């Protein structure tokens, strides 16, 4: 069997294994039956510390992590390392913020962040905006997972879309059948594979490539040879503000993504979440090591796969063949490891794409069901109807993402995700701050959201994608070329860039605050808040917290 044949055999075997697991998961710790949205969409809200660790870890560290972050480090150097501070920042915030969402959601039976907004502000409109933002932001994120699988297939020399379609049909089928339990169970396999692969890679590869110093020297030589002043193994002076704001903005976004909320709400009690916020940084360490694979790829002389197209500037200059940076890590494994180990690494990436894709589609489906279908289409929907609608919606969401990846250029996967992050962070005032204060007027929040979205799109529109050549800067695309906005466009005399989401959030907050003051002065009616201060602190055992775990069979008990 050829090297690629061995890889394909291993990937296929492991893929079939997790598909079987996905279907079996329906019976794992099954409660009142999947006919209730709490069961299908939140796994019965019963996950203890261990399952939550795997679920949230599988949720947040995606194929994007394994493929795009090292690709970014490979291409730009230090700037790509933002993923590390980003995941350092997110856990303390979740510890303080989402823990309150867990409590209030368990007292009131909320399934989505928009459910909370609906109850907190008595505004179906604001809830609808939060729900739509969540769905729109999640779609490209799911598509990004597919780009991860696609990169693996390309590295194995497989062309055509059929394998990707088969993988996604399998994923769609077991998510439909098992709900959140499927990704929770598959996450165990995914993490075991990923940890194995990364630990072997970071021990074996640097030694093989001449040690850390040699690896960084190779990277430094590569960046010194490019005419681009923004790359290098350190940040350029003008890149530091962008680095910090991207890390902070991405962390805020991650906390607000519907799928993060789904992972947190599925936990059994507050303690399970808090313990996890201390244990989840183990993944951050893994992510940091993964990012460094970008440098190992440079030292190993990996060249990304050419897409066949030619990169051409808007002025007609030919800039050489277009390449798919996402293939860097798969190619590194393909070149440096025996094919059986490369096969395991590829399977890890592919399965790593399936877990978050499943959770994300469930989260988006829950938003659709709870905040659009039940709110506007069928107010008297029973829990069984809700669960059925959600299952169908998860299918629609996934096929939408599949279509997006078949039509769009995979090179833009990271930009797509960054745009999603820019959008979702606009729900921070309503969801994140709403957990602490009811000061904002619902109308003010709607105005702020509008201003933030308009600002975000205006800025994204004004971010060109440029390539620095010896002959000067050549613009490849005029609009939506990334999420680093040049402050000089606002008339500031600086070379600094700032993360679009961060600046748009600032606009959002200012408008929301001013509008709130005006609406309060005008004494316009504000919505009714049906939550009370103590709801945000309730824990399992509180009589108001419905204990769904009581109905559960004591099967596969993994609680810590």
């Amino acid at each position: 069997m050829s090297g690629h044949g061995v890889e394909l055999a291993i990937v296929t075997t492991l893929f079939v294994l997790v598909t079987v697991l996905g279907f079996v998961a329906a019976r794992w710790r099954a409660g009142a039956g999947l006919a209730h949205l709490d069961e299908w969409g939140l796994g019965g809200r019963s996950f203890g510390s261990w399952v939550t660790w795997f679920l949230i870890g599988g949720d947040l560290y995606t194929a994007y992590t394994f493929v795009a972050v090292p690709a970014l480090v490979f291409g730009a150097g230090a700037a790509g390392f933002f993923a590390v501070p980003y995941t350092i920042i997110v856990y303390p915030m979740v510890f303080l913020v989402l823990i309150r969402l867990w409590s209030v959601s368990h007292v009131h039976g909320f399934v989505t962040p928009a459910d909370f907004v609906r109850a907190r502000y008595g505004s179906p409109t604001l809830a609808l905006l939060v729900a739509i933002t969540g769905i729109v932001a999640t779609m490209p994120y799911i598509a990004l997972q597919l780009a991860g699988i696609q990169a693996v297939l390309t590295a194995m020399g497989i062309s055509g879309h059929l394998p990707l379609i088969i993988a996604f049909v399998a994923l769609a089928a077991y998510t439909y059948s098992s709900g959140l339990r499927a990704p929770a169970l598959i996450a165990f396999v995914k993490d075991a594979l990923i940890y194995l692969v990364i630990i072997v890679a970071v021990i074996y590869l640097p030694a093989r490539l001449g040690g850390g110093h040699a690896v960084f020297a190779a990277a430094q030589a590569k960046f010194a040879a490019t005419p681009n002043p923004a790359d290098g193994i350190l940040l350029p002076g003008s890149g530091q503000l962008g680095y910090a704001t991207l890390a902070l903005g991405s962390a805020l976004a991650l906390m607000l993504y519907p799928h993060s909320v789904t992972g947190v709400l599925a936990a059994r009690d507050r303690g399970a979440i808090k313990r996890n916020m201390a244990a989840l940084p183990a993944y951050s360490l893994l992510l940091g090591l993964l990012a460094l694979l970008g440098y190992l790829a440079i030292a190993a002389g990996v060249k990304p796969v050419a897409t066949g197209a030619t990169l051409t500037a808007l002025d007609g200059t030919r800039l050489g063949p277009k390449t798919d940076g996402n293939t860097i890590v798969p190619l590194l494994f393909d070149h440096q490891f025996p094919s059986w180990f490369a096969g395991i690494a590829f399977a890890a990436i592919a399965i790593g794409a399936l877990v978050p894709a499943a959770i994300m589609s469930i989260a988006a489906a829950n938003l659709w069901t709870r905040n659009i279908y039940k709110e506007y289409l069928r107010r008297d929907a029973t829990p069984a109807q809700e669960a059925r609608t959600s299952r169908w919606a998860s299918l629609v969401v996934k096929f939408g993402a599949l279509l997006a990846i078949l039509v769009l250029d995979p090179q833009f996967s990271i930009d797509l995700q960054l745009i999603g992050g820019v959008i979702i962070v606009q729900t921070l005032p309503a969801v994140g701050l709403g957990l602490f204060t009811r000061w904002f007027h619902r109308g003010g929040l709607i105005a702020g959201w509008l201003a933030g979205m308009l600002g975000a799109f205006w800025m994204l529109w004004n971010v060109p994608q440029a390539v620095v050549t010896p002959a000067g800067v050549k613009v490849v695309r005029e609009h939506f070329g990334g999420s680093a906005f040049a402050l000089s466009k606002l008339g500031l005399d600086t070379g600094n860039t700032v993360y679009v989401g961060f600046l748009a959030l600032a606009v959002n907050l200012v408008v929301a605050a001013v509008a709130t003051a005006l609406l309060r002065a005008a004494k316009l009616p504000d919505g009714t808040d049906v939550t009370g201060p103590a709801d945000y602190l309730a824990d399992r055992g509180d009589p108001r917290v419905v204990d769904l775990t009581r109905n559960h069979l004591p099967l596969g008990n993994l609680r810590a």
Partner: protein
Amino acid sequence: MSDTDTGAPRPGEPGHPDRGRIDRRSERSPWNWLLLLPLLAVLYPPLYNRTDPWLFGMPFFYWYQLAVIPVSVVCTLLVYRAGRRKGAR
């Protein structure tokens, strides 16, 4: 805060016969400020944007940020333990 508050104590609030399990004290603990430490450590890049000193074959920029990860774990654990100890009744 709440428009529907009738004034009567709700479950979990002082004065209500059933205080249930309320994680109130951990919320106000001064230990929570510790969670700011890892944030501040990474959000100001001029603090660590240099190559020297190297460690384990990595420039300072890289190992410093990786080293903040265990610091954030310790901070989170301290806050968690402090909250639990005080919250125990």
